[in-house]
């Protein structure tokens, strides 16, 4: 080993550590990866928020691509993404299914009356029964479910234009191609 550059070794190790730590700092510890990716959606059955007499079940998520959006009236980030969802609701490639999570039905309905309803159907889960099955630990969360009812992706936090263009749109195009 040539002696001339050996003194650089500690410097290189230090540099590598700095890079590692900077990457670590840039990551959001709140974004916990879901173990449900690649797994079939859990079985569930919930009353529908907009029509308590009707039931939303897991089979309603099969046969077409679905975005499953976890939201609540008390959740301010959900209001942030609401406009984006309204725009997405016009896209015919997928349905948007809401999971109204740990919420009060009246509060939730009044939010929808005021800001519009981007959802095709909404499951009402005030007691977090289905939320636990889906590993929900905050709102908003958005799952992408393929035609076979397999969870393909989970987005934590509000959906915005950037998330749509960089992640969701390519994924949905891919799912559509898969058929």
């Amino acid at each position: 080993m040539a002696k001339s550059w050996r003194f650089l070794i500690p410097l290189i190790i230090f540099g590598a550590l700095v890079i590692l730590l900077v990457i670590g700092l840039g990551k959001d510890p709140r974004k916990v990866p879901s173990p449900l990716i690649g797994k079939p959606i859990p079985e569930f059955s919930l009353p529908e928020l907009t029509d308590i007499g009707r039931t939303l079940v897991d089979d309603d998520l099969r046969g077409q691509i679905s975005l499953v959006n976890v939201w609540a009236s008390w959740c301010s980030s959900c209001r942030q993404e609401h406009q984006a969802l309204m725009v997405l609701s016009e896209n015919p490639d997928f349905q948007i299914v809401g999971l109204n999570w740990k919420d009060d039905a009246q509060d939730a309905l009044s939010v929808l009356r005021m800001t519009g309803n981007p959802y095709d159907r909404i499951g009402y889960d005030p007691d977090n029964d289905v939320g636990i099955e889906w590993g929900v630990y905050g709102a908003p969360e958005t799952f992408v479910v393929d035609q076979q009812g397999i969870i393909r992706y989970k987005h934590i936090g509000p959906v915005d234009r950037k998330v749509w263009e960089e992640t969701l749109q390519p994924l949905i195009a891919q799912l559509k191609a898969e058929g």
Partner: protein
Amino acid sequence: MIRPTHPLLPTALLLASLLSGLLFGGVAAAYTLEEFEFDSPAQQEQFRDLIGKLRCLVCQNESLAGSQAELAQDLRNEVYEMMRAGQSEDEILDFLVARYGDFVLYDPPLKPSTYLLWFGPFVLIGIGAVVVIRTLLSKKTTPDQPVTDADRARIDELLNADQTADRDRPSDS
């Protein structure tokens, strides 16, 4: 008149305040257990143990046992219901890991994706030890340089110069 003070009074007061701290601290920490009923103290102990092993995903540095978050309350209820239904500790942990991932466990499981976490420190210590041992050995194996006549002459010169300097210096005493 000065009231006679018992010599142990300050100590007793200190003890009393410490004890009450413990007592009320205990009450404050037990809030989550009060709403759960158990068949036996052993079952309560098992529940307490279990929720201490699980992480609250909202406030990530707290266990389910210590967290006031609503989600933690939901998960405590879930764990409680599962326990009452006679499920084993492993079944309950598996249930939560299947939904929330390994992150709900405070103790990361040993598996290929966590090998680096578990063995990394030992590998680093090993590398360090090898470096240290090699450095020490390489120093030992460097042969001593034979002292040449020129060296001796230089040594004598330096030693003599030193002695001369000593002699010439004015005495301090």
